[in-house]
Each structure stands twice: as C-alpha cells, then as structure tokens.
C-alpha cells in the first residue's frame, strides 16, 4: 500500500533511473512545449494536445506498416534508418497540420469569447481525437515491433555500468537539435518576434500590423510539429501504442509545462526533465499508483502556490 524503498545495489539503480528519467523527460519536454507555446499566445489550455500526440503515434504505426508492405521485412540497418528519417519528416507535419485545422475550425471563431468557452471546446476536441484514435488503432493496443524492428534493442554504449540503448539515444539525438532550433526560431527570426509580441499583447501586436491569426496558426503548427516528433521517438522507444495513451502522457507533459512556467520555453524543457525524473525515480523506488498521485500533487501544489512556475511567465491577471 505505501511506497516502498528499493534496497540493494542502489548505486547502479540510481544511475539507470537517471538515464531513464532523462529520456522520458525529453519526451515530456517535447509535448510540454506544445502546451506552453499555445497557452503563451492565446491563454488556452489545449486539452487535446496529448491526444494529438496519440494520433501522431498512430500515424507512425500506419506509415511503418505501409513501408513494410512495400519493402518487405525490415531489420535495423540502412533501410530502417531511411524509414525512421521518413517518419521524422512526415509525422510532425501531419500533426502540425491537424493542429492548424483544429485551431481554424474550433478555436478561431471563439477568440473573443470568455476564457472558459474555448477551454470546454478543447475538452470536446480531445474527445473527438480520442474517438478517432479508437477507430484508427482499435480498442486493443498494437505493437510497432510486430511490423518492423526499426531501432535495435541493443546498447549503443555504456557509461560505467549503465547501458545507453540505441532507443534512448534516438530520443536524445532528436530532442537536442529541436530545442536549439526552436530557441533560434523564437529569438532570432521575424516569426519568432511576432510570436513573442502576440503573446505579450495581442491587440498591440495587431496595431503594429502583425497578422495575429497567422501567428497563432503558426504557433499551433509548431506545437503540433513538436508533438508529432515526440510521438515518433516515443513509439520507437516504447514500441506500443493504444488509443488511451494521450491522456496520461498529456497530463504529465502539461504538469511539466506548469512546473516550468507555462508560456515559457526553457521552462517547459526544465519542467519536462524534472517530471521525467519524478516519473522514473517514482517508478523505481515506489509502488505503482503513487507516481500518478505524486505528479498530480505537484501540479496542484504549484497551481495553488506558484502558478507562474519555476521560471515565471509573462501573463498577468487582468481585472
């Protein structure tokens, strides 16, 4: 009933859990960025974001199945590398596109509505996406590895006693350039400047001649793109998808965004990593359900006592 502490071989356990936490944390960070970006710009908690991630995973599976039907059996090697690259190119665009469409159809007509209206709509979108996932994937989970072994299970290298698997490396190798690219985009491009301006004050940005609807659409696209990336590397690492996977992962990532300060990009990354560590160490040192309670407890405590998160945010309470 109560969390137990693992005994024995603690040194090795710690480092392995650390690596695991780093990897899961990177995944959470990618998804958290989507939440943060959208909230920063239109102050909407996009409940449907986690389910978009799930659809990305479904697309990953379908595309892999398609590739296998064209090319035959795939084992780790040249062909699988090409397929992985293809997935990393196509799926994020798919998710980004879907996100833009959802914004255009559901949220854009509600720009002038009181805040709770788009929030409730986002809940509705979440349900619709989950249902699409249920029809797409089915009610039983599916395993990517039954279709193709795209990334080998072997260890890439070893730091001391702790193995770093290929699958973990794929996650880390993908995440780092993405973070750099995103930071560059937001800091040094015109679109990034427009995004920051719109996030600060939408009306003023409009007055300055910024096409805010396009900026918002771009933000949704980027958020979706990141979710799609996360979906591909998640599916490669974990190998198993089910239509319910968006809810839990989404909530964890959302907590990460809050922890880091919602609307804040480095905050989302920090929050993601922190949450990855909580997830990994919690799973390693305690039993089952308490990890969930812990993460939601963190969410609640933060929302009540420090809603601006660890790195603060730019939104202000308007009277």
């Amino acid at each position, binding site marked *: 009933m109560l969390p137990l502490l693992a005994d024995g071989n603690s040194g090795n356990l710690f480092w392995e859990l650390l690596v695991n936490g780093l990897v899961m944390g990177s995944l959470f960070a990618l998804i958290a960025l989507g939440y943060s970006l959208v909230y920063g710009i239109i102050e909407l908690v996009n409940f449907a974001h986690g389910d978009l991630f799930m659809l990305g995973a479904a697309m990953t599976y379908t595309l892999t199945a398609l590739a296998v039907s064209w090319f035959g059996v795939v084992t780790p090697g040249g062909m699988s590398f090409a397929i992985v690259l293809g997935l990393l190119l196509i799926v994020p665009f798919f998710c980004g596109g879907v996100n833009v469409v959802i914004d255009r159809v559901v949220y854009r007509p509600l720009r002038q509505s009181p805040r709770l*209206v788009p*929030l409730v*709509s986002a*809940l*509705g979108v979440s349900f619709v996406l989950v*249902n699409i996932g249920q029809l797409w994937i089915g009610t039983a989970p599916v395993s990517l590895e039954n279709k193709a072994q795209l990334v080998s299970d072997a260890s890439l290298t070893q730091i001391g006693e702790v193995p770093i698997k290929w699958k973990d490396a794929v996650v880390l190798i993908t995440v780092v350039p993405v973070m750099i690219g995103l930071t560059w985009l937001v800091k040094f491009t015109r679109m990034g400047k427009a995004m920051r301006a719109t996030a600060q004050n939408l009306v003023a940005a409009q007055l300055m001649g910024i096409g805010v609807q396009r900026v918002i659409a771009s933000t949704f696209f980027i958020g979706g793109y990141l979710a799609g990336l996360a979906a591909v590397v998640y599916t490669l690492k974990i190998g198993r998808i089910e239509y319910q996977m968006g809810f839990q992962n989404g909530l964890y990532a959302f907590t990460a965004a809050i922890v880091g300060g919602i609307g804040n990009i480095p905050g989302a990354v920090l929050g993601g990593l922190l949450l990855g560590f909580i997830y990994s160490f919690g799973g390693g040192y305690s039993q089952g*359900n308490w990890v969930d*309670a812990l993460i*939601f407890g963190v969410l609640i405590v933060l929302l009540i006592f420090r809603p601006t998160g660890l790195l603060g945010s730019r939104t202000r309470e308007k009277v």
Partner: protein
Amino acid sequence: MTLPSRSAIAGGVLFALLAVLPQLPLADWAIPANLLTELLILSILALGLNVILGTTGLLHLGIAAFYGIGCCIAGILTTSIFPFQTNFLVAMMVSAFGTALVGLILGAPVLRLRGDYLALVTLGFGQIVITVLLEFENITGGKKTLQGLFPPLLPFVSEGTLGRRGEWQSFPHFYYLCLGLLAIVYLGLGNLERSRLGRGLVAVREDELAAGAMGLNPARLKLSALAIGAGVAGLAGSLFAMHNTNTTEPQNSFNFNWSIIILAAIILGGLSSRAGVLWGVVLLMGFDKIVSRIIDDSLQAAAADGNAAFRLSNYRLMIFGLVLIVMMRFRPNGLLPERRGTSK
C-alpha cells in the same frame, strides 16, 4: 394568475414523462429497465455539478470523484464485510454529508484560483481521489470493489415488502425511489436558487469582485457551492452503489471522462437551468445508453455485425465531443438557458 415559466413547464413535462416511463412496454422495445434508473441517478449528479458550475460559475472538472466518494461511503456502510451494515437511509445521508465534507476540505485551497487554474486543480484532485480509492483497497474495495450490497431500505423495517433485502433495489421500486429523490433534490435546489445564498452564488458567478465590494463573502459562497454540489454528487453516488449492488472500479466509473460527460450534458441542456440540466441528461445519456444501444442491436440484426464502423457505440466519445464543440460555438448558454430578469 401568472402562467408557469417555460422552464417550469419543461421540468413538469419531464417529470410526468419519467413517472410514466416504467408503465410502458419497455421489454418489447428491448430497453433494459435498469438503464432508466441510471438516467435518474446521473440527473441528480448533474444537478450537483450545476450548483457549482451553472449557478456559481466555477468550472469543476472533477465531479465524478465526488460521485465515487459517495459510492464508496455507501458501499463501506452497507457491505457485509464491515461491521456497520446500516440500512440505506443512513448510508445515503452519511454519503451525502461525508462527500460534502470532502468537498469542503478540497475546496478550501482552491478559493483564490480563477477560471482555468481552478479547473486544472479540480482535475488534479479528481485523479488523486481515484488513486486514493484504488490504493486504500482494504477500506474502499479498490479495484476489486465491494460487492453484495443488499441493505434494508429503512431502519426498523425488517423483512417486510419494503425492507425485504434487495427487493426494493429492483425495477421499478428503485426507479421510483430515485425519481422521488430527484424531485426532492430538484425542488430543494430550486429553493436554494431563490434564497439569499443562491442569489449570492449567482452574484459570484457574474462578477466576483463586485460581489465582494457589495459586502458578500465570495470565499464562503464558493465553499458553500462546492460543499452543496459535492453533497448532491455524493447522494447520487450512494444511489449508484445501490443500483449496481457493488461499488465498481474507481478508475472506470469515476474518472475524468465521466466528469466531462456530465459537463457535456449540462452544457447541452442549459447551464444553471435545472430543467435544462435534466433535459440535457435525458437527451445525451438517454441517447448514449438507450437509443444507441437499440440502433446498434437493430443494425447488428440487419447488417454486417462485427464491423466496427457500423456500431454507433464506437462513436460515443465523438458525439460527446461534438456536443461540447457545437454548443460552445453556437449556443454557449445551452438549449434551455436560464432566463434572467423574468419571474421563474
């Protein structure tokens, strides 16, 4: 003499329909009778959420957790595993008040929060409640449920017609019991709306700052709303436990999805209007549980069975989601919105 308002007519018509329903030849229409009772129980739950969301304007995304707490309290009090083994009346009251107490405790930290942060905290609380119900399974039954709940209906009434164990839990006796309780809750909440407390809640919903400036205490009012809403939800939970004769699994019956489904029902029917809430539940849950089942069965009999695309129940979540999206887009005040400024 003033004519009854539109919502009073709507409410009256609905109650009349519900009272007549068991007398119709349901078995011929292949409507399982126990589904009707579930409509009534969900109506009571929706009325509870309405106090919090419709009347007071607090977006609460964890109402199903209170439903679950009420269910578990009733289960603990009536199961033969524990020494309490009370009758249903006592179990129902303790569930309602106990859940109200929990609502009070969980409500205290959220009073300073606005709109979406409040929603997220209630979401988090809902998930934590599920975890607690699952982990403390020696008390709550957890995933394995507490089953065999067949208490007597009233105290001091031993095995007579009403007291006969389990008999009153069958259709149509239990249905009419639930209908009666629904009527009591409905009228009681109507009194609440017309009272000083009720007007205070509406004031908090409309403009919390102005209400405070007028001398009301928004924190206390919000706490009252949360406690009352939780209490009504707990009452519904105890009925749910009796209806199922077991407490069912927390993670399936009291999860976030259910909170949103009830939300969809009251948004469909009309926030803040009690009659609207009832119609929303009847329409949405009636469609989901009864009509879609009938359509599925006749589709199965007629055409390809096993083909997922033809089963209406596979589109359930999409329908709920679309209800939310469409209502928010076109009629955020619902089908039967509250009429402000006219006599009710």
